[in-house]
């Protein structure tokens, strides 16, 4: 595979070229042994002592040094120095990160890295979250867990994002890894409470069970009761706010009592405030609390638990993160005031309460660094945030009602206020109906630390609502002034000019999301030719065609993936990519199998891979060859 060193991707998960791979299987004959750990040899260690040759000493030293390297990018770089370094790095890598589950096979990854304790795997591309991809597209955990079961008996941690996980997978996991400690599942689907029950009962060393924004089928299994019934558990984190099942509260309470190390607890909606109180009283050491529904439907008197809740919360001296509030009763809002001053993270993005109520909370939160809210906070609410939360690093403003009024409750006024008040801002996600260039430019100037700027102007092709001009200058200012920017999402009325700016100034950009923007192929060309660090590019409904696609040929091997849906690509144009870049897997996905006009490409999803076309694709997916 031809490597382009000019823009070596920081996310380099590639294994080295053919000759180096040969080294691992050919038993390099070394007569030296015995001193330190013998790396790579497959035979029994010889009992003869022979003077270690210098190479072996070097490798031993290297091993002792490289084990301290934790950053995978540093490790990737180290592995490219020479064969020896490659070999030692592979032996000392304990965290395996697979950014695209189809870029490499489990077998290949596991034969290179033999001493792994923690595996992270990501599957579907992000646009799959928005129903743009067929449900059964792929990203199955099964082949991975099956391979790991024999390759990594000492596996401790698994992190999965956008994968399909089955109950059988979870059962195999629970059965295969006696030291298993941490399971984090984000935006996945395919499993049920039965699977959770097996993990709960069989993973005796479990410290972390985090289920985040995943679809979990309710099998009516009382999985909470499946945790070992007696003795203390090792649990430090239990997050299940997305699991929509009824909860055996007594079992949960008993579990909390038996988990003295529990620091993070995020409950689902089926825990009432009265129950929440009881739990908190049992676990005053909590640092992260998800309050579940934060509702009390059986109150005889509204707010009758309020003082109990307030004193229970006040006892949690270490609480820094609050979330939940899914069916929030405003009567209980004041109960959180005493803990607000210590909060660094607040997620109110499911609490549909009036802006006044949110503001009353915000005024107590001087130390907030992370805030997620609904746009029902309104511009006034954002002004309150700007005046109070001087340490804010991350802000997300989600839309309550996507198809709402023309006006929308948050606007350029709110964005401007935030830019003026929250100078340390690093990451923003902002949904609004309309925006102005002036506000975006202000943010680019006021917030120089911005790394992530995601502005979603919901009204399609919406220009600056004051000047009527495209939003080019605003986004241009962001890429120009925010020197640390690595992630950008653009929206609103944008011409090729905006992409010109991105290509010219977005030198550190790794992720770019484009929707309903641009005039012509030039837009995409500017980006592909100008952004050397680009890893993930997702584009929808924009007028970019085959010529634009071809302008990125020099760069696609350095990228994690390219997604283009509802653009102007033809099958012929995509075919030419395959011809030019054989190590790219080019998937063309149809919206609908039945309708087959063969001259159109609904979705193009392409990614580099060492394995060639996968064999688990559904009918709607055509892998061009």
């Amino acid at each position: 595979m031809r490597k382009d060193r000019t823009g070596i991707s920081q996310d380099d998960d590639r294994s080295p070229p053919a000759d180096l791979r040969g080294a691992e299987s050919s038993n390099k004959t070394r007569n030296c042994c015995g001193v330190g750990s013998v790396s790579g040899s497959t035979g029994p260690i010889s009992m003869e002592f022979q003077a270690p040759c210098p190479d072996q000493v070097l490798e031993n030293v290297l091993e002792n040094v490289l084990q301290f390297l934790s950053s995978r990018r540093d490790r990737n770089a180290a592995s490219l120095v020479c064969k020896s370094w490659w070999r030692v790095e592979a032996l000392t890598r304990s965290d395996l990160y697979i950014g695209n589950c189809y870029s490499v096979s489990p077998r290949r990854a596991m034969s290179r890295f033999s001493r792994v304790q923690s595996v992270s795997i990501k599957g579907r591309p992000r646009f799959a979250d928005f129903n743009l991809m067929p449900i059964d597209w792929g990203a199955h955990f099964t082949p991975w867990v099956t391979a790991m079961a024999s390759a990594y008996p000492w596996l401790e941690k698994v992190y999965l994002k956008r994968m399909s996980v089955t109950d059988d997978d979870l059962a195999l996991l629970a059965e295969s890894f006696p030291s298993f400690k941490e399971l984090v599942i984000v935006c996945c689907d395919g499993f049920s409470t039965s699977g959770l029950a097996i993990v709960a009962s069989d993973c005796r060393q479990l410290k972390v069970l985090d289920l985040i924004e995943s679809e979990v089928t309710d099998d009516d299994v009382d999985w909470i009761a499946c945790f070992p019934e007696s003795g203390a558990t090792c649990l430090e984190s239990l997050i299940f706010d997305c699991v929509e099942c009824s909860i055996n509260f007594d079992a949960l309470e008993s579990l909390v009592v038996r988990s003295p190390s529990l620091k993070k607890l995020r409950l689902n909606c089926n825990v009432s405030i009265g129950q929440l109180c009881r739990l908190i009283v049992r676990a005053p050491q909590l640092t992260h609390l998800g309050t579940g529904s934060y509702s009390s439907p059986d109150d005889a008197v509204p707010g009758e638990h309020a003082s109990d809740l307030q004193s229970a919360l006040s006892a949690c001296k270490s609480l820094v993160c609050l979330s939940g509030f899914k069916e929030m009763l405003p009567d209980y809002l004041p109960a959180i005031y005493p803990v607000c001053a210590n909060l660094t993270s607040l997620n109110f993005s499911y609490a549909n309460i009036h802006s006044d109520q949110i503001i009353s909370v915000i005024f107590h939160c001087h130390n907030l660094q992370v805030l997620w809210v609904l746009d029902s906070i309104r511009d006034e609410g954002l002004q309150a945030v700007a005046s109070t939360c001087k340490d804010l690093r991350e802000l997300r403003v989600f839309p309550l009602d996507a198809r709402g009024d023309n006006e929308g409750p948050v606007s350029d006024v709110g964005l401007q206020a935030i830019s003026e008040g929250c100078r340390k801002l690093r990451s923003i996600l902002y949904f609004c109906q309309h925006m102005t260039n002036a506000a975006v430019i202000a943010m680019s100037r006021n917030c120089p630390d911005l790394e992530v700027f995601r502005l979603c102007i919901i009204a399609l092709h919406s220009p600056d609502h004051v000047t009527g001009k495209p939003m080019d200058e605003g986004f241009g200012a962001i890429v120009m002034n925010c020197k640390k920017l690595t992630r950008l999402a653009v929206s609103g009325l944008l011409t090729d000019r905006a992409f010109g700016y991105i290509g010219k100034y977005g030198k550190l950009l790794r992720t770019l999301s484009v929707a309903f923007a641009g005039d012509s192929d030039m837009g995409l060309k500017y980006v592909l030719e100008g952004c050397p660090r680009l890893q993930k590019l997702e584009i929808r409904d924009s007028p970019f065609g085959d010529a634009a696609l071809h302008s990125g040929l020099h760069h696609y091997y350095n990228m994690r993936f390219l997604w283009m849906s509802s653009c102007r690509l033809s099958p012929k144009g995509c075919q030419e990519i395959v011809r030019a870049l054989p190590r790219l897997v080019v998937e063309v996905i149809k919206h609908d199998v039945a309708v087959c006009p063969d001259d159109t490409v609904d979705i193009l999803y392409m990614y580099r891979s060492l394995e060639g076309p996968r064999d688990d694709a559904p009918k709607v997916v055509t892998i061009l060859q």
Partner: protein
Amino acid sequence: MAFDKELNLEATELRLGLPGTKESEKQPTIAIKSNKRALPNFNEESCGSKENSNASHLIQKRDQEIASPAKAQVVGWPPVRSYRKNCLQLKKMEAEAAGMYVKVSMDGAPYLRKIDLKVYKGYPELLKALEEMFKFSAGEYSEREGYNGSEFVPTYEDKDGDWMLVGDVPWDMFLCSCKRLRIMKGSEAKGLGCAV
């Protein structure tokens, strides 16, 4: 040993300098001249994509946009995860079923109240309820003169943020546009009496 012709000796080369850096190797640019015109827009359902190959279309697009904002449903837009959409959708539906609560304030009164507008069938009932709640008298409403001669006047804030006199618009329209109510001192309410 047979050397694969793709043997990449660079990878084994020991040299000074950070791994991964190298003088840039100019790749031959694959220049594909495309004289194809842009393909017709085949995605009718994604109402966002429009054919624009020259700048003058921008203005046209903008005017179109202002005239008829895109309200049609576009798949996967705005990009909010279904999990979040479902949570909030449920709450909206509940809110709609549960009633339309708006805050009511009265000048001089220390507390705000909340009433459910859906409970009332029309203005007379609403006014009566307000009068009872706040112990005041609104007086007679006339289109020309508003609430003539009363000490307090019921007003409301509409979606545009303007303060309007209660009673000017048809009841159903009032239900849709009323965000909050304020019982103003008669002296302040003078300007609201005229119909627009």
